[in-house]
């Protein structure tokens, strides 16, 4: 099948009902993580219960969006819909603690040659044209 370069054809999240507040948060430019009201731990990715105390008394809470680059790769051979230009994939450890929040995301607005483990990064948001979803990305802070 021919790929239309203007159409977004990469996979997108299904927006499961349990995670609805998260996807609504992205539209406002907020990255929400479930924080336990009982023990205070952050829980990412979200689960029904807190990993530390199993409390279900969790609250979707906006994080700072700031973190450091845990590791990364510049991908030269991706699936066909990811195009022919190399793309960046990162794991970013957010500054909120305890229980680390590590976010997997594509790297945007950053010269790949400048990437170094440990460098400051931040979350940014990208409205996907033609789709009912805003995605999160990371870039050098």
């Amino acid at each position, binding site marked *: *099948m021919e*790929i239309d370069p203007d159409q*977004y*054809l*990469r*996979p*997108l*999240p*299904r*927006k*499961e009902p349990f*995670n609805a507040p*998260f996807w609504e948060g992205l539209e406002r430019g907020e990255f929400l993580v479930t924080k336990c009201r009982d023990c205070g731990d952050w829980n*990412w*990715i979200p689960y029904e219960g807190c990993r530390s105390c199993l409390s279900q008394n969790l609250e979707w809470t906006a994080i700072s969006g700031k973190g450091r680059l*845990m*590791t*990364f*790769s*510049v*991908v*030269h*051979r*991706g*699936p*066909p*819909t*990811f195009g022919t230009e190399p*793309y960046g*994939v*990162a*794991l970013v*450890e957010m500054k909120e603690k305890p229980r*680390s929040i*590590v976010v*997997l*995301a*594509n790297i945007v607005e950053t010269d790949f040659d400048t990437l170094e*483990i440990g460098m400051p990064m931040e979350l940014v948001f990208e409205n*996907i044209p033609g*789709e009912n979803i805003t*995605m999160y990305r990371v870039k050098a802070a």
Partner: protein
Amino acid sequence: MAFPQKAAAVVGVYTTEQARGMERSMWSLELEAIKGALDDAGLSHTQVDGLIPMAYETPLNLHMAWAEQLGGRPITYMDVGNGSSAVAKATNAIAAGMANVVVIYFANCNNPNGPRQLKVQSKAPRVPDWQFMVHGAYMSVWYAMWTQLYMHEFGTDQEVFAEYPVQMRANAMLKPDSMMGHKGPITVEDVLSSRMIATPLHLLECPLDNDGGYAIVVASAEIARDCKKDPVWVLGGAEATFTDAYMTIPVPWNEPKGQAVRRCTEMAFDMAGVTHDEIDVAGLYDCYAVTVARDLEEMGFCKLGEGADYMKEGHLYRGGKMPTNTDGGLMANSHNGNPSGMHTIEVVRQLRGECGERQLDDPKIGVTLAQGWSVHGLAGTLVMAAD
């Protein structure tokens, strides 16, 4: 309670053709593998009363359909597992009287693991919320990130990891039905000048991504004694997992206390009553070189951060103190999607002494390790002994 050592043995193994783009059904490959492994043992399908299909997501109706295929007789033991832990669990079930002959099997056809898995569609496909393919992070991308982190933390030279596929190609050249052996030897320079896939990994540092099937038959000691070939005894084995599949990332990634592989390996070695120095041959899950380094560290062959040095010293390669993946492993023999049983099969063949040109000198004790997610995910360790 002690593990029921030598209550059961591996009595039959079989691998189908391993190739890319096969025009076969998974069922046909699985059936060929089951028949082949039973024939290797000299057993009839009417004796099978335990099934461990290694499908990644295994619904019980799969066991039920295979019970029908195998003659519509009661199957009394239905389980899941990996290529190492399934053998240990089958042994346990046999010792407890739940089954007598257990078949462990897997096949894959036209379900690639690599970037080919994502077909072009006319609209963006929707996948579960935290699915990594949203970011184009297929397996080589994950392992590229872990290789990058490992090299950063421990100062590993790229040449050390690039030596691993060179050695595996040499091993595969001694195995006539391996996928890459016929292509001849490669050098570290070849590896590092092959096409970049995902920094820092080049094409020749990535595993194969092919079709194929295999089966392993485990039988009670009593039955094993009458089988066609010498039994390979199960001394101990265990499994462990501790996190979801590529969604939650713990910090630190390289945990000094160890993770799933550490836990199941300590259990398996304790059960078997063997020490690291007693292992003559190993089959360690080796999707990427960093996986092997981490396998060695977690299994206790060396400390965290020393796995790459252990590889550099040559202990795993032919002539080393613990030859590993003598079939060429996942980079040069086959990676058929869920290939952990391939490591077990190669170690069984070495312990039986039927490896032809690549046969080691009279190995007595072997270990196999199955793992996922760079030693954090589903893991299993198995210790076996020659008759």
